[in-house]
Structures are given as structure tokens and as C-alpha cells.
């Protein structure tokens, strides 16, 4: 049986990418022969949006505050754990074993929160990628800035090649009369 190449290649970026096996809702970007395919899937229902390379005028990346928001949320939770652990530890004048264990578990949770904040910070700033076409601007995906740049590096040569190829023959093809059997 001949091997047929896959029509789409997965591109970097897309939410819920790492936990896709159990993600009910996710957005992914795929590269087709002449277009980008944005796939939004929810519980087995997939919706497709195509952006043809020849129509893409610009790719715009906007920095978002998602990383900061997550850091604040996780940080506040971690500080709460730490505060409760400190209160339990310092008010436990009788050195009760159970309370010491509780304080230790809460302090461990605070450390985990701190590690999560650190990982979130080290992964880089968050951003949203937009595609501008003649029809308007459409959000493509929300990713880390590094992933967005990787996506842009992958897309730029494809888009430029599609638009360069289109530029020259398009004008000639429409002005010449159609000759059946003769390729223009």
C-alpha cells in the first residue's frame, strides 16, 4: 500500500497541548499545503477555520498579562498556606505532633506554589497571536512568546513562498485568453 503523506502538520502553539489526551476543549494550529488550519475542538466536535497563506497580510503578537495573573493567583495561595503554617507552628507551644505535621504539610504546599510560580516565570511571557487578512484580524492562539516566535519562524517562509508564487503568474493568467489544452 503506498504511503500517503498527511495533509496537515502540527504547528507549535495551541492551548491545552500537553494534556490533550484528556482535554475536552482545545485549540490547535495545523499547517496545510496552502493554508493554516485553526482547529477548535470540544468534546468530539471540531470546528475549522482556514487562513490561506496568500491572504495573510501580517502576523501580530500582543503581549498579555496571563503570566502575571497566574503568578499572583498561585503566589497568593502559596502565601496563605505559608501564613497558616506559620501561625500553627508558632502557636503550638505544647509541641503537639499532629499540629507540627499539619504545619509541615501546609509549608510543603507553599513550597509547591513557589515552584509553580518559578516555572511559570521561567517559561517566559505570555502573548496572543493574531492573523491579519483583508477581511480583518483574527486571534490565532494564546501561547508563550518563545512559542509564538517559533510559530512565526515556521510560517514566514511558507507565507512568503505562497505570495511570491502568486504575484507573477496571476496577472498573466487572467489577461490571456483561455486556450483549451494549452497550459498558461
Amino acid at each position, binding site marked *: 500500500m503506498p504511503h500517503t503523506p498527511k495533509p496537515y502538520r502540527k504547528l507549535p502553539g495551541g492551548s491545552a497541548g500537553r494534556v490533550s489526551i484528556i482535554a475536552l476543549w482545545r485549540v490547535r494550529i495545523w499547517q496545510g499545503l496552502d493554508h493554516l*488550519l485553526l482547529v477548535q475542538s470540544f468534546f*468530539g*466536535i*471540531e470546528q475549522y*477555520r482556514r487562513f490561506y497563506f496568500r491572504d495573510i497580510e501580517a502576523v*501580530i503578537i*500582543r503581549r498579555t498579562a496571563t503570566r502575571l495573573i497566574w503568578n499572583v493567583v498561585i503566589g497568593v495561595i502559596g502565601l496563605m498556606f505559608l501564613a497558616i503554617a506559620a501561625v500553627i507552628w508558632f502557636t503550638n507551644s505544647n509541641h503537639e505532633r499532629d499540629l507540627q505535621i499539619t504545619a509541615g504539610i501546609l509549608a510543603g504546599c507553599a513550597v509547591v506554589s513557589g515552584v509553580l510560580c518559578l516555572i511559570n516565570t521561567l517559561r517566559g511571557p505570555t502573548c496572543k497571536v493574531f492573523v491579519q487578512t483583508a477581511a480583518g484580524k483574527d486571534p490565532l492562539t494564546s501561547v508563550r512568546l518563545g512559542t509564538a516566535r517559533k510559530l512565526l519562524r515556521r510560517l514566514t517562509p511558507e507565507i512568503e513562498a505562497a505570495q511570491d508564487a502568486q504575484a507573477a503568474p496571476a496577472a498573466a493568467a487572467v489577461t490571456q485568453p483561455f486556450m483549451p489544452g494549452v497550459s498558461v
Partner: protein
Amino acid sequence: MTLGTSANFGLVRCPQCGAALAAESWDRPEVAVSCPNCHEELWAQTFPAIARARPEVRSGEHAMEGEAVCFFHPEKRAALACERCGRFVCELCDMPLGTRHLCPACLGSGLESEKLPELVNRRVVWSKLSFFVGALPLLLFFFWPIFVVSGPAAIGFGIYSWNKPGSLVTGKGRFRAVIGILCGLAQLAFLVGLIVAIWKGTTHASHP
């Protein structure tokens, strides 16, 4: 062919506030630019299409004596042949679809029957549905009464998916369907086991 508003022509606009970005921010995707209006941090990469003049809508030229004519407009000169049925079409009837050119009839039939993957905008992937309906209730085991519905549903969706078109990007996903069917069977097996255990418990209680 792309049709657009003249307001967007040749301009990159801030996605947040719509303000036009300075020209020097273009083609330097590694350098962040602050939007002059909302001060959002932006990076932009432009492509030749932004400077391309919008193509005029063509209605097709009148055919001269002996020239090939459009199948749908016999008075118009043929510009291309439909890549699906081979009918000659004029510029008005040319329906570009990606890199292909189709006639209106083929485009219409493709829309109705989903035979053209380029026209599919939404699809129910039954194998995925089977997988979710089969696996999720097992993961959330404390909702076990739902097995009465989800077990048969997972098996049904899995079987139904076998000859249905799958996802445009990942294909039919028969492996997922098989897992879904197996999970559905596991749910039913649990229910049968539960019923048998209850039945045995009641018979033991009535005949000590």
C-alpha cells in the same frame, strides 16, 4: 480573491485598540513596539499581501468568434477549466478554493456532500466522542450511575464512527474508537457485576 475594506489596506493595526502601527515596526518581529495609543507591547511581521492592490471583481469578457466559452455563460470567454468536472468557466464563475479552481456547480455539490475537505467547517468526530463518553466516566468513578447511559453510548458511538469521516487533521481515529468501546464494555461489566452482587445479596438475605 480577497475582498477587504480600504481602511485596512497597507496598515498593520493594533489588535487591542485598532490604532495603526508605525511603519518602522514592520518586518522586525524580534523587536517589540509599543502601541502609540494603548501602549500594548506588540511584535508584527508583514507579508507582501499587505501592499497588494485589491483585485477588481471581474465579470468576464465577451467571447469572440471561435473562442472557448463559459459553460454557464455562453456569451462570456472561458478563463479556466473546473479542476473537478472539466467544464469551462469564465472569470465570474471561477471559484478559487485554495490552489484549486472549481465551477459553481462543483462548489455547491461539495458544500452539500462534504466531499471537498476545503469546505468542511465543522465535523463531529464520533471516535473522539466514543473515547470521551467511555473514558471520562471511568476516570470520575464516583459518578458511576451514569454508566447506564454512557456505557451503551460509548459502544454505539464507537461502532457508528467506523465508516464515518474522521477529523480533518488526525483522521478516523479508530484506535480511539476501540478504546471508547472497551471503556463502554468495562462500564457495562461493572453494572452487570453490581446487579449480580445485589441479587446475590438479596437472595442470601431471604434464604439464610
